[in-house]
């Protein structure tokens, strides 16, 4: 609108532009108010606890609270020579309370992670300290075990003084901070988490690839068959999709056991001898097979919904221009299905990387994933800060995958059913 022309007024005498803006703002507020209940519900009960996990993961007050006097006494210790009698006395008093309340085992576990060999000398001290006489604790403690006279062990205690630390994250990738404050890897025989991360990644990738290889042909068949046949076959995809995860896992447990139908079949066709039935459950193979079948519908459905939109005349055009069926498929059909491939692979990969139930039931020791370890620390060792740290590392991984996907394909391609 040119500036010279008179402003158009509404019937109320307000300039139209202003009135429009007002309505626009009103609409914005109205739309936002509709979203509000769910948004705030989720922020309070879901997003904020996830952010809270960040604090839990660096929270190291457990040790700090167990040895309050020791850490206070250690404040003016330079860490070069053995600490003074004052520190030894404070440590004795702290530890006595822990032993009396039967909490010293936890301290031993925590300190042993900090420095190898702590568990035994702490246990020995717990037994011997009952007979301690008053005064001169430094000598008495050092007499319990010669390691108490080594300055390294006292430095290790001092390192646990701060209330917040990132050691749980280091632990999650098999690293620790040594005496000099350098971050190094733990000895080879004690590395567990790196293997677990790699295995999680490997299983998620392999399952995604398997799902893709199995889903692509059947999605293509479903999309090209006449309606009356494809609807019938679609049931084969949708029924497992709607069936309880535990039911499907249970059926795989039955099928894969040593006396199960799969083994029976292998014996019957003569691939394996009756007394050499392969173990297919409680290992990686079981996890692969069960997870592939369980996640397959999540690959088929996005592929199908994309393939359904590809006009068959494109293929005919390709062929009429002299392309062989393989070339027309590769040059025309396949590129058009890439959004579906992206959506399916993303969905399956993200679901697989955080899978818990199926690996726990059919995975055994060699087929479990990082989520099983998180659950283990949540429910059994009660090391919640470590569970949070691992959870957040996993979440970061998932979000990176998600972000890459969004850059490459765009997120609007996820469809349900």
């Amino acid at each position, binding site marked *: 609108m040119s500036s010279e022309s008179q402003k158009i007024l509404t019937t109320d005498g307000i300039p139209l532009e202003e009135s429009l803006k007002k309505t626009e703002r009103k609409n914005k507020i109205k739309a936002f108010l509709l979203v509000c209940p769910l948004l705030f519900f989720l922020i309070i009960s879901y997003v904020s606890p996830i952010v809270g996990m960040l604090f839990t993961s660096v929270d190291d007050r457990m040790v700090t609270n167990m040895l309050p006097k020791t850490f206070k006494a250690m404040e003016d210790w330079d860490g070069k020579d053995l600490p003074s009698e004052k520190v030894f006395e404070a440590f004795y008093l702290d530890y006595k309370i822990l032993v009396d309340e039967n909490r010293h085992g936890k301290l031993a576990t925590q300190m042993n992670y900090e420095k190898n060999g702590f568990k035994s000398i702490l246990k020995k001290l717990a037994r011997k300290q009952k007979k301690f006489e008053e005064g001169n604790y430094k000598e008495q403690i050092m007499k319990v075990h010669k390691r108490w006279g080594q300055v390294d062990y006292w430095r290790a205690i001092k390192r646990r003084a701060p209330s917040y630390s990132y050691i749980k994250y280091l632990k999650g990738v098999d690293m620790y901070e040594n005496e000099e404050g350098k971050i190094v890897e733990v000895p080879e025989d004690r590395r567990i988490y790196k293997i677990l991360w790699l295995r999680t990644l490997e299983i998620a990738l392999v399952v995604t690839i398997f799902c893709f290889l199995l889903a692509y042909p059947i999605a293509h068949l479903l999309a090209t068959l006449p309606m009356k046949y494809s609807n019938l076959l679609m*049931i084969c995809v949708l029924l497992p999709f709607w069936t309880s995860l535990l039911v499907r896992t249970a059926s795989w447990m039955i099928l894969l056991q040593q006396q199960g139908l799969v083994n029976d079949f292998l014996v019957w066709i003569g691939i394996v001898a009756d007394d050499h039935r392969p173990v297919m459950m409680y290992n990686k193979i079981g996890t692969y097979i069960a997870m592939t079948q369980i996640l397959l519908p999540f690959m088929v459905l996005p592929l199908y919904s994309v393939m359904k939109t590809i006009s068959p005349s494109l293929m005919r055009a390709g062929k009429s221009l002299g392309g062989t069926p393989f070339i027309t498929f590769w040059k025309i059909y396949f590129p058009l299905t890439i959004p579906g491939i992206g959506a399916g692979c993303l969905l399956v990969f993200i679901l697989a990387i955080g899978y818990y139930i199926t690996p726990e039931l059919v995975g055994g020791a060699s087929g479990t994933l990082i989520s099983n370890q998180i659950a283990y620390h949540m429910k059994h060792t009660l090391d919640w800060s470590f569970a949070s740290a691992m959870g957040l590392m996993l979440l970061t991984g998932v979000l990176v995958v998600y972000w890459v996907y969004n850059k490459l394909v765009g997120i609007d391609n996820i469809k349900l059913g």
Partner: protein
Amino acid sequence: MALPKYTETHYRIWHYCYLFFCGCVFFFLIAPLFVIFPLSFNAEEFLVFSEGMKRLDPEAFSLRWYHDMIYGTKNPWGLAAKNSFIIAIFATIGSVILGTVAALGLSSKHMPYKGIIMATLISPMIVPLIISGVAIFFFMAKVGLAATHAGIILAHIILGTPFVVITVTATLSGFDHSVTRAAASLGSNPVNTFMKITLPLILPGVISGGLFAFVTSFDEVVIVLFLAGLDNTTIPIQMWTGLREQLSPTILSVATCLIVLSTLVLVAAELLRRRSERIRGINR
């Protein structure tokens, strides 16, 4: 999809290989479900096909595990089923109401910060379940709702809403907004317009979102494992303990019942999808 007569032999062979492969995949998908069915009628205590069953001897089949499921001593399934249904129904109602209202706001073209809000709303679907479980457990423990029905219901509402938001937004994408304007011009207030005009039109989307929410809640183990006490055991939790500890054929009877239930859900979802497509004018 019969091949044209002029097809060359090697393409013909290739085509039949392809069909055979597809057949195998469909078999792989569906067959495991059908293993459970006959085994649940097993007369013996083992989870393998007995010799009698392989010979189809009527003696080898019985209903004893169904009997055990319903009348068994110290039977946990009754309580579990009751809890499961209560939790799933309330969680579905909650998810549907919150999700539908939010979807109405989200699909308005005036909605500010649409991207980030949408991402937040569907985040429970993207974040791995185990992490959601840990986070929700921390929250429920803090507010004192751990080991209560209310806590589990709230947790399942969190998990269920993304499905409702997605299905309803999809339905609303084909929604003709002039009908609500027409209603408004005829003097209807917004609530009345929603109940009389909008809701009936988006109902298929709402119900199918609700079905997703129901199934998610009904089938959810991870979060309930963290949250549930002895009084809030659900069917999946019972199955989980059963599968880990004493593998009894009663589980298979329950599993069979669940398969029947999921078949019903499938039929309902499929009918809804077709109706929704018809309403939105998508012809295939």
